[in-house]
């Protein structure tokens, strides 16, 4: 069990509207989401953590707008890998007595401002680009399409199954007023971006912000607790030149350590908020986190999964770099989620960045977990 396990709780979540053109600054978005989260929590933060890719509002500006007397504060450079592990960063500050209440946020004009699609995912010193850019490989969609193609080849899954993932996501999102994509469209009419990924297989770049307020468990006794958090990675989709398995993503590295840290097994997970920036990441994570055996993937995806991304996930709700999935994990444990999973006591949420990332388990208090 990790030292901070059960010591911190997510007392409030807040979001702005998600859109393709917010017409507002990242600071305005961050402050609005933060105010919602602070109101819900009924606790004033004394610390702030944000993550960004050079595209968000600075922490000290957010503090100034909110008139927060700032103690510990930090800005973490990173995208999707951060959304689960930042719960651990906040819980550590609280457990160590360095903060009472931590505001966590991600704000971006991901569609109208700085877009992700050509963002370099290079590791190291950038040698790789001279071997890929001249051939027209740029940005995460194409990189993870290459992994997806091999994944379908490995597993025997087909585009029919990617279609089933998207259909499941959209079907869930119909009940989610926050979702950007709420219609079950014709998957096969969706234009191919980079095979096997169509536009519908990719989450949509989004303008918006999401915030969480994390405080000590004794200040918010009824709020979902941060139970276990891991962060890590290794060989796989992030360095395809030298890995045995280009389909390997963060989940295959962090799933074992997560359940070990949590003292749980996959059977304990009631609801999973999987980082579904691309459709194929859902079956890959279902396998890695032990939620579905490879042999059962095809049938399971076809039938749909009520306990996975019940709000529609990043594919349909929108893309606030995964933090909006974490917010839904909190709601599901409080009982006010979208397509609420009855009696959900344990939630898994994940943060993807190729073969590096993070995952967290949140639990509802008072259930003996």
């Amino acid at each position, binding site marked *: 069990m990790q030292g901070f396990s059960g010591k911190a709780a997510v007392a409030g979540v807040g979001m702005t509207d998600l859109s393709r053109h917010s017409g507002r600054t990242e600071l305005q978005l961050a402050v609005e989401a933060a105010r919602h989260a602070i109101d819900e929590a009924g606790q004033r933060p004394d610390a702030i953590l944000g993550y960004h890719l050079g595209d968000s509002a600075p922490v000290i500006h957010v503090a100034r707008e909110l008139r927060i007397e700032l103690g510990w504060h930090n800005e973490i450079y990173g995208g999707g890998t951060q959304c689960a592990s930042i719960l651990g960063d906040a819980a550590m500050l609280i457990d160590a007595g360095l903060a009472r209440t931590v505001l966590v946020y991600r704000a971006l004009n991901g569609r109208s401002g700085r877009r992700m699609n050509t963002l370099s995912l290079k590791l190291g010193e950038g040698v790789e680009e*001279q071997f890929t850019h*001249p051939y*027209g490989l740029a940005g995460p*969609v194409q990189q993870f399409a290459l992994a997806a193609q091999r994944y379908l080849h490995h597993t025997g899954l087909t585009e029919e199954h990617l279609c089933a993932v998207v259909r499941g996501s959209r079907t869930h999102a119909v009940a989610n007023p926050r979702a950007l994509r709420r219609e079950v469209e014709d998957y096969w009419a969706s234009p191919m971006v*980079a095979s096997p990924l169509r536009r519908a297989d990719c989450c949509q770049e989004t303008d918006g912000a999401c915030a969480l307020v994390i405080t000590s468990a004794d200040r918010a006794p009824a709020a979902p607790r941060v139970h276990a958090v891991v962060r890590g990675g290794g060989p796989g989709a992030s360095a395809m*030149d030298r890995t045995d398995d*280009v389909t390997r993503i963060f989940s295959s590295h962090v799933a074992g350590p997560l359940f070990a840290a949590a003292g749980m097994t996959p059977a304990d997970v009631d609801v999973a908020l999987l980082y579904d920036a691309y459709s194929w990441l859902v079956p890959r994570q279902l396998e890695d986190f032990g939620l579905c055996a490879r042999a059962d993937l095809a049938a399971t995806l076809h039938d749909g999964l009520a306990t996975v991304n019940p709000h529609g996930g990043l594919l349909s709700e929108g893309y606030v770099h995964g933090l909006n999935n974490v917010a839904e994990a909190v709601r599901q444990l409080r009982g006010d989620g979208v397509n609420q999973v009855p009696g959900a006591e344990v939630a898994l949420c994940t943060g993807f960045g190729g073969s590096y990332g993070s995952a967290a388990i949140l639990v509802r208090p008072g259930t003996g977990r």
Partner: protein
Amino acid sequence: MAFVKAGRADVITRPCPPTKRALAWHSMDPRPLPRPNALTAPYWEACRRGELTVQRCRSCGRRVHLPEPVCPHCGGTDLPYEAVSGHGRVHTFSVVHRAFLPGFAIPYVIAWIDLEEGVRAFGGIVGDIAPDDVRIGLPVRVRFDDLPGFGHIPNWRPA
């Protein structure tokens, strides 16, 4: 300018796809050019000679690609480039229908290639094959195409 190294690879000029860039002067080709550094300059110089080379570690004998200053297997620092056969198989690929870089005529195919020598190389799949016919496992052979303003870069064609 470039020439065929006998038995090693074919060097041909890149057939311009039927786009407006076919009319452009070579120096105006908007595709990104490789920017060699001290580590990679010998690789690109070999390409200009129509020769595909990869690093081989003097300490442990293993091949290394993409280029590294230090051997990821043993930590060796002497990694000269050596010619390889230019034969391989498609490890994975994607048919790109939306380009995020300028100058590419869609659809085009990008791929990681497992070389016979046990390393993985990147490139385009070109030549006498329709994009939708590319498959994982397809045997391919290197082909050098002219990238105007730079010189020859390796691509892959069905073997």
